[in-house]
C-alpha cells in the first residue's frame, strides 16, 4: 500500500514538473506596420512556436507615426509588449524601456558578428546592446535611368561628387519636371556625406558651424537658386518626394533600401540606385536600421530572449528578405534581398557594398528626434527664400538643448 502511494506521489511530481517545464508563455510583439504586414510577421512569429512549442508570439501593429506616440504611453502605463520594435535613430530616447541584452548574449555566447556592424552599434546605447537587428541600410540616391539616358547623362558612379549630382539635377530639370525632389531628412544624411557634422565634440548640437551650414546651403541653393527641386511643405513628410519620383516628375530622390521594393513596384521606368554624393573629401555614409528588443517590464524575459533569437535568426531573415521587406541585418542572408527586392534595380549590390565600406557612425543624442522635427518644420523657409540658411539654422539651434 505504501509502495503504491509512493509511486503515485512520484508520478504526480513528475507530471507536475513536466507541466511546469512546458508552461505556456504568451508573448506580445509590438511593431509598426499595417494590416497587410500581418501574415508576413505572423509567419515569423510562428517560427518561434515551431522551435519552442510552449511560446506563442502575437504581433501587434501600429502605424509608423502612432507607434512612436504609443510606445512611451504604453511604457509609462505598464502596458508595453514583451518584444518591442526599435529604430536605431530613436534608441537614445527609448533605451530605458528595453532590457539590456548583454547578460543574455554573454550567457548564451551569442555571436553578434553575424550582423552588419553598423546596425549592431546603432541598436546599442553607450556600449550596451538593447536590441538585435532585423534590417539595415544606408541612405541612397534612387534615380530614373530612363531620364538619365534621355538627357545623355552617364549613370552615377559610387564615388560621384556633389558637383556631379548638382550638374545632373540641373540638366534633368525642365519645365515642371525636376532633376531632384528634396525632403527633410536629406539635410541630415547629405551634409554628413559631404563631410559636415551637426554635433560638436561633446555630442551637443552645433548647427551653426561653418561646415554644416555650408553643406545645408548647397542643398538649399539647389532648390532656391537652381530650382532643380521643388520646395517641400513642413507637413507633407516624405510622401511627396517618393510620389514625384514614382510619377516621373522628379528624376532623383533620397531614400533607403527599406523602400526599394515599394518604390520599384510603383514606377514604370528603369530604376537605379547610387550612393549619396560626396564632398571634397572621401565618401562617408550614415546607416540606420531597426530591430527588436525585450521590454524591461516583461515578465518573461528568458522566453522573450529565446523568441528574439528566432525572430532575428537566419530563417526569419530569409523570409523577410525574400519578401523584399528588409535588407537583413544578418550578412549571410542579405543575398535573398538582392535576389528579390533589388533584382531589377541597377547598381544595388555595388552601391550598398560601397556604402557599408564607407560608413561612418550615425551620431545621435536624446534630443535627436527634436532636431529632425525642427529641420522638417523650419527648412522650407530657406528653400522658398523667406529666410537665409544661416538664420534658419540659428533658429533651430536656439530651440535645441
Amino acid at each position, binding site marked *: 500500500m505504501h509502495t503504491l502511494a509512493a509511486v503515485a506521489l512520484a508520478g504526480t511530481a513528475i507530471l507536475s514538473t513536466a507541466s511546469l517545464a512546458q508552461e505556456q508563455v504568451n508573448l506580445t510583439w509590438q511593431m509598426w506596420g499595417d494590416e497587410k504586414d500581418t501574415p508576413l510577421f505572423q509567419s515569423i512569429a510562428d517560427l518561434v512556436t515551431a522551435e519552442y512549442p510552449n511560446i506563442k508570439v502575437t504581433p501587434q501593429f501600429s502605424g509608423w507615426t502612432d507607434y512612436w*506616440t504609443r510606445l*512611451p*504611453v504604453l*511604457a*509609462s502605463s505598464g502596458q508595453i509588449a514583451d518584444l518591442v520594435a526599435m529604430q536605431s535613430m530613436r534608441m537614445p*530616447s*527609448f533605451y*530605458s*524601456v528595453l532590457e539590456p541584452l548583454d547578460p543574455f548574449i554573454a550567457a548564451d555566447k551569442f555571436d553578434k558578428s553575424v550582423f552588419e556592424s553598423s546596425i549592431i552599434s546603432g541598436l546599442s546605447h553607450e556600449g550596451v546592446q538593447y536590441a538585435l537587428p532585423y534590417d539595415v541600410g544606408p541612405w541612397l540616391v534612387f534615380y530614373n535611368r530612363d531620364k538619365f539616358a534621355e538627357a545623355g547623362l552617364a549613370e552615377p558612379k559610387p564615388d560621384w561628387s556633389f558637383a556631379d549630382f548638382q550638374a545632373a539635377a540641373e540638366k534633368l530639370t525642365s519645365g*515642371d519636371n525636376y532633376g531632384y525632389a528634396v525632403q527633410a531628412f536629406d539635410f541630415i544624411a547629405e551634409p554628413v556625406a559631404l563631410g559636415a557634422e551637426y554635433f560638436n565634440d561633446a555630442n551637443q548640437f552645433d548647427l551653426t558651424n561653418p561646415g554644416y551650414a555650408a553643406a545645408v546651403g548647397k542643398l538649399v541653393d539647389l532648390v532656391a537658386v537652381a530650382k532643380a527641386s*521643388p*520646395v*517641400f*511643405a*513642413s*507637413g*507633407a513628410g516624405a510622401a*511627396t518626394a517618393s510620389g*514625384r519620383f514614382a510619377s516621373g*516628375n522628379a528624376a532623383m530622390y533620397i531614400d533607403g533600401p527599406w523602400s526599394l521594393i515599394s518604390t520599384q513596384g510603383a514606377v514604370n521606368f528603369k530604376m537605379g540606385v547610387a550612393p549619396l554624393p560626396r564632398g571634397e573629401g572621401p565618401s562617408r555614409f550614415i546607416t540606420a536600421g531597426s530591430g527588436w528588443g525585450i521590454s524591461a517590464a516583461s515578465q518573461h524575459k528568458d522566453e522573450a530572449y529565446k523568441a528574439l533569437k528566432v525572430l532575428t535568426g537566419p530563417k526569419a531573415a530569409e523570409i523577410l528578405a525574400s519578401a523584399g521587406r528588409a535588407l537583413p541585418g544578418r550578412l549571410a542572408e542579405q543575398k535573398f534581398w538582392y535576389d528579390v527586392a533589388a533584382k531589377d534595380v541597377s547598381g544595388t549590390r555595388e552601391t550598398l557594398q560601397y556604402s557599408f565600406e564607407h560608413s561612418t557612425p550615425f551620431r545621435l543624442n536624446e*534630443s535627436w*528626434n*527634436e532636431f529632425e*522635427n525642427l529641420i*522638417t*518644420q*523650419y527648412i*522650407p*523657409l530657406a*528653400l*522658398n527664400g*523667406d*529666410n537665409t540658411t544661416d538664420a*534658419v539654422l540659428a*533658429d533651430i539651434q*536656439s*530651440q535645441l538643448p
Partner: protein
Amino acid sequence: MEDSAVATGAPAVLPRRRSGRHDGRTAFLFLLPSLLGVLLFLVLPIIASLALSFTNWKLLGKPAFVGVQNYVRLFTADPQFWTVLRNTLFFTVEYLVLNIVISVGLATWIASLKRGQRWFRVVFFLPTFTPGIAVAIVWMLIFAPGGFFDFIMKSLSLGVPNLLTDQTLAMQAVIIVSLWANVGYNTVLFNAALDMVPPSYLEAAKIDGASAWDRFWKIRLPLISPTLFFGTVMTAITSLQVFDQIYVMTRGGPGNATATLGYAIYQRGFQNFQMGYASSIAWVMFALIMALTALQFWLQRKWVHYDN
C-alpha cells in the same frame, strides 16, 4: 394610509420627505456610473495634469517636483511661446469672425429658400461628419506644392504662391480647411433659430415699410442672439484648441507660422517627451479659454436678448 396618518397626527409632509430621500438615493445610484466615469476620466486627469505641470516628467521615468519652473520658462525663456500664443489668438479671431459671418449668411440664405432647404442643410452639415484628420489629409494633398490648388492658380495665371510653404499664407490655408469642415454646424444651428422667429413679426415690419436688411438686422438677428451667443462661445473654445489641421497640414510650419498652443502641447509632450512642460502649456491654454469665455459672457449683456 393617508387617513391613518391624519388620524395619528403624523405630519403630512413626512412620507413625502421619505419618498424624496428614497428618490434621491435611487437617482444617485443611477448617476453613480456616470459620476465615477467623470471622476476617473475627467476630474482625476485634470488634477494629474495640474500636478504634472509642476514636475519635469519626461514620460519615461519618474517625475521630479520643479515648482513653477515650467511656467517661468514658458513666459521668460521659451523663444517660441509668444509666437505660439499670437498664432493661436490670430487663428481664433479670424476663424471665429469668418465662421460666424459665413454661417449666419448661409443660414439666412437657406431660410429664404422656398425649396430645397433640407437638402442644403444636409450639404453644409456633411463635412462635420467627416473626421478632422481625414479632412486635413485631403486638403493637405490639395494644397501641397504642385498639388491641385497650385495647378488651378497656374491655370488661371494667378501668381499665388504655394499656401503651405508661405509664412503668411499657411495659416490662411488652415483657416480655409477649418471653415470648410466646421461651418456647417453653426449654419444648421442658426438656421434652426431663424426658423423659430415668428413670421408675424417679420410680416408686421414689412407692412410698416422695413427693408429686408432692417428686418434681418433689427428683428431676426436680435431674436436669434442667444443661439448666436452659444455658437460664438463654443466656436471660440474649439478654435483655441485647434490641433488636427495643423498636425496634418503644416506641423506648425513653415518655421513657426502655424504653431498654436494645441500643437505645442503635442510637440513638447509627445515629440520632445517634456510632459511636465506640455502640461504647463495646457494649463495656460485652459486659463486663456476661461478668460476669453468669461469676457464673452460679460459682453453678452450688451447684445444678447432673451425673451424674459
